[in-house]
């Protein structure tokens, strides 16, 4: 057994018990942006675990185009936070080699659509290496993918690509919708011995919230309880769903809202319980509906809760079109009105 192997099989450094990422003395509930929370998660991981290394395009002096890696190269040096040449397969392939030697690389893909060149490395190696080697070679790589629209990005800057990842066995796929979860899920992803794709909702990058705990990979969370119907959502669509739930009150509906957080592994327990409680459900996401993750959710919820369902599980998603130009994206994105329309279609007059 080489030294590298020994390191790989050692338990990963899990976040320590102290108030996460905050300078001593600051109150634990300080509010900050999601960008800052992700930045803190990276900083705390770099500090706690010398095997953590960041690599990607512009992650160094610039701090990433979204500033998620701001200040990290300055604090930890270019070896720990590396500006790479401009080539996504090269970035992910290099991370694979680094992980083979016992490091925990964190890769930044600059935008959703620019992760596509790395898909061969992702599907054929990252997702499969543990399996290919009978469990001998783990690849604890975290792949950060800013995703989704709503930020006025021109073409190729607003794709929702989570379904590609979620359909690929061997990857974990998580996506935070709150500032607290962005910190928690990123730390958990880095600590995981499996490869994790962290889909970061770029339209929520500048939302603020308190920073609290780590978030477990694989657990959904009920953001709002309700009795009429259950909205199942994640990432960028959570705020819309919560707003829809408030608006629905006016119309006499009491909607529950579940934030899935983790697409793989999927939290069947929480989701099925939440749907059974209301007997009606709607899945909401930005990605195109056809073959989207909403289809999986609708199908598995129906398999598990069929006789408790008063209506079919409906979906409110992006249309089956390439992501629109900024001036038209509002029509494509799930909106409060579209969600309320779907609620109205949940067969209340049976």
């Amino acid at each position: 057994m080489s030294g590298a192997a020994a390191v790989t099989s050692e338990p990963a450094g899990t976040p320590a018990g102290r108030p996460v990422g905050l300078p001593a003395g600051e109150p634990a509930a300080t509010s900050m942006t999601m960008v800052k929370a992700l930045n803190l998660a990276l900083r705390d991981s770099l500090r706690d675990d010398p095997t953590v290394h960041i690599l990607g395009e512009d992650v160094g002096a610039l701090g990433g185009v979204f500033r998620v890696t701001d200040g990290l190269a300055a604090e930890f040096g270019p070896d720990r936070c590396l500006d790479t040449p401009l080539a996504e397969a090269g970035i992910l392939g290099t991370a694979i080699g680094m992980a083979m030697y016992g490091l925990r690389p964190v890769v930044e893909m600059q935008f959703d659509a620019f992760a596509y060149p790395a898909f061969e490395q992702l599907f054929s190696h990252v997702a499969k290496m543990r399996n290919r080697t009978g469990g001998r070679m783990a690849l604890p790589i975290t792949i950060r993918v800013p995703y989704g629209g709503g930020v006025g990005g021109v073409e190729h800057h607003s794709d929702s690509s989570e379904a590609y990842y979620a359909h690929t066995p061997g990857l974990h796929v998580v996506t935070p919708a709150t500032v607290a979860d962005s910190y928690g899920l990123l730390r958990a992803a880095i600590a995981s011995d499996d490869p994790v794709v962290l889909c970061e909702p770029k339209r929520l990058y500048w939302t603020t919230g308190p920073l609290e705990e780590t978030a477990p990979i694989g657990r959904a969370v009920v953001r709002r309880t309700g009795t009429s119907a259950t909205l199942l959502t994640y990432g960028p669509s959570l705020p819309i769903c919560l707003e829809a739930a408030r608006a629905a009150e006016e119309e006499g509906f009491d909607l529950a809202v579940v934030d899935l957080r983790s697409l793989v592994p999927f939290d069947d327990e929480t989701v099925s319980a939440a749907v059974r409680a209301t007997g009606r459900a709607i899945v909401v996401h930005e990605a195109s509906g056809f073959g989207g993750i909403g289809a999986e959710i609708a199908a598995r919820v129906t398999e598990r809760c069929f006789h408790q369902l008063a209506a079919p599980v409906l979906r409110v998603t992006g249309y089956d079109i390439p992501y629109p130009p900024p001036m038209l994206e509002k029509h494509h994105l799930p909106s409060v009105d579209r969600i309320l329309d779907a609620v109205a279609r949940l067969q209340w007059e049976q």
Partner: protein
Amino acid sequence: MTIVHDSVPTDLVGSVGLRGPRRDPAPLLPDAEPLRVLGTRAAVTGDPDLALDLYSRLVLGRRFNRQATTLTRQGRLAVYPASTGQEACQVTAAMVLADQDWLFPSYRDTLAVVARGVAPIDALTLMRGHSHCGYDPYEHRIAPLATPLATQAVHAVGLAHAARLRAAADPRASAANVVALALVGDGGTSEGDFHEALNFAAVLRAPVVFLVQNNGYAISVPLAKQTAAPTLAHKAVGYGMPGRLVDGNDALAMHQVLTESVAHARAGRGPVLVEAITYRLEAHTNADDATRYRSAAEVDDWRTRDPLTRLEAHLRAHGQLTDATAERLAAQAEELAAEIRAQFEAAPEPDPRSLFAHVYATPTSQLREQAADLDARLALDAEFAADNSHNFDHTDHADHAAEGAGGQLDRDHDGRGDLR
């Protein structure tokens, strides 16, 4: 006549085996120094009309870049990646192409697109956020501006190859001797697609000119972190095509090298890789903060090599630019700027119904359902807007999703993701 048989270079000196190199690498290697014309005898003896023509294009190009940047400040463009400082590359890339040729621009090359004849408002449609490509690629023989880096270089190879195939199938076709010019950045050369494009072009002997505008940076990443090669032009030898190195801020040199390269490709002698050494004087885009990764001193140093001032100095020194002409050019530039502003004033909003029209030749039944859903929603919104036209205080759920988007454009730009 078949193209593919034709593709084995006639200067091959042997086939695979133990006989060493199949062709002499020496002619493929770039010169040790970038070609310069300004400041040499060739500039003095060259065509003064060409020099003045180039200069007038640079002046217009610079004004175009300035106007577009202003439009970003006014929120009328979502984003603009300025080519300020690179105008000599941009305008010569458009100039050297014949009518039947094709240009494959990358996202920074709006100016080259305009220089080839596209109306500014159409060239800037993408950056406005209005629609993905505002011009007809076939009308101008310009591919859509490509954002995924280096992907367009491969398309250029395919198009040039197809043109040769069709010309071979019908030698009297007007499509004969089409050249494709692909624009790539220094950062883009690191992508696998760049490699595959050059290799396919060389193997197919496709008439493609690859112009790398080496402006020293890929967003924040300097060339030294991008490559350890002697020059990017040295990559050519690895594909079996000639590499040329040129001063990209010398419009005369750019014009000469690109003219020669296009002629080389058009003559059926295969592709050429040109590296133009230039500099982007502005930030990566309006959303970028360039002070994070380069010094003011460096930028100032490059300002002394501004392609406009260098050509102007040359023209003035040789009495080829009078104050009167300079004033006329300045006025023309202002006219262009005014025209752009007018085009923006007059430009209509996009029609949401267009979202479903061009996904396929014929919309699927699923898309027809979805289009009907949107139609119904739009009709309701219109009704609602009519009812509430006197009341700006209402809560319009349908507009909620747009807030995020609209909101972004107004905020402070640093770290907004450089949405290119």
